[in-house]
């Protein structure tokens, strides 16, 4: 176990012990703080709210069923996230069965370079833009537009704030792969959101100018 592991949460440890001993009604209380992480993990694979909710809820049921297998030296939140990722991937495999077995499922890891497509200068975020529904929708669309393997690292790292080691552990990939995918995911997100690119959420009179040095 790494020295950077967080101090064990004694309340959580206690709850887990009592649930293992048979007091299963305490499970809802135990997982209360992790609902969003588990939902986000499922969403990161599936990319839509309805399927993500379904997979997340199924993951919680599986976690309860298998809580006897949870090892005390693991981090409970990471364990839950792994179950959610597995559940979501299972659904994708089932869905694709018989259809085309295509896309990003798998082997080829495009380590190829990705370069930003839009060079708009974007020093400031207009504060009023932060309130806008349009911006929230633009963010959601941008996240949904990513391929699962990029969305997974982006959601775990930049929305759920797992560190690189935790992200690697949850996804079962190396830290180097996390970093490579994260670079690409972040640049694609920036490109999708850079104001002026399609102007969809620029506020008032555009204050941005395109800078294309090349």
């Amino acid at each position, binding site marked *: 176990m790494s020295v950077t592991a967080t101090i064990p949460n004694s309340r959580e440890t206690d709850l887990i012990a009592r649930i293992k001993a048979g007091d299963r009604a305490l*499970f809802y209380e135990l997982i209360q703080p992790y609902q969003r992480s588990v939902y986000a993990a499922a969403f990161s694979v599936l990319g839509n709210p309805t399927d993500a909710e379904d997979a997340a809820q199924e993951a919680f049921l599986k976690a309860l069923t298998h809580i006897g297998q949870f090892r005390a030296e693991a981090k409970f939140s990471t364990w839950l996230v792994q179950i959610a990722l597995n559940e979501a991937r299972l659904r994708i495999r089932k869905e694709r069965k018989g259809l085309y077995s295509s896309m990003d499922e798998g082997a080829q890891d495009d380590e190829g370079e990705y370069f930003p497509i839009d060079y708009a200068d974007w020093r400031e975020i207009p504060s009023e833009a*932060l309130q806008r529904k349009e911006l929230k929708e633009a963010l959601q669309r941008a996240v949904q537009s990513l391929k699962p393997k990029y969305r997974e690292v982006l959601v775990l790292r930049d929305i759920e704030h797992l560190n690189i080691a935790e992200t690697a552990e949850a996804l079962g990939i190396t830290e180097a792969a996390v*970093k490579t995918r994260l670079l690409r995911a972040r640049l694609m997100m920036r490109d999708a959101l850079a104001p002026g690119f399609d102007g969809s959420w620029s506020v008032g009179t555009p204050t941005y100018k395109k*800078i294309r040095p090349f």
Partner: protein
Amino acid sequence: MPDDHSILEIDCEHVILQISNYIDGEIDANLRARMEAHVRGCKHCSAILDGTNNTLRLLADGKTLELPPGFSERLRLRLAAHINHK
């Protein structure tokens, strides 16, 4: 930090490839200094860096992936049904 004149220059491509590691503090001090020197003089890379940082700020505010309304209650009910069933 070494002054700019003692820093080996790096190009835009190299900066972009390391920009995510730079944001995460996953690079050594030497590379950091070289990148900072480059970004100070390069509008292109500074725009990419600022935009990426802005993107991360927007993502971090938690509104991008909210739980669907009613999620908790539906979960509570499903768990209760599951527990009572056993």
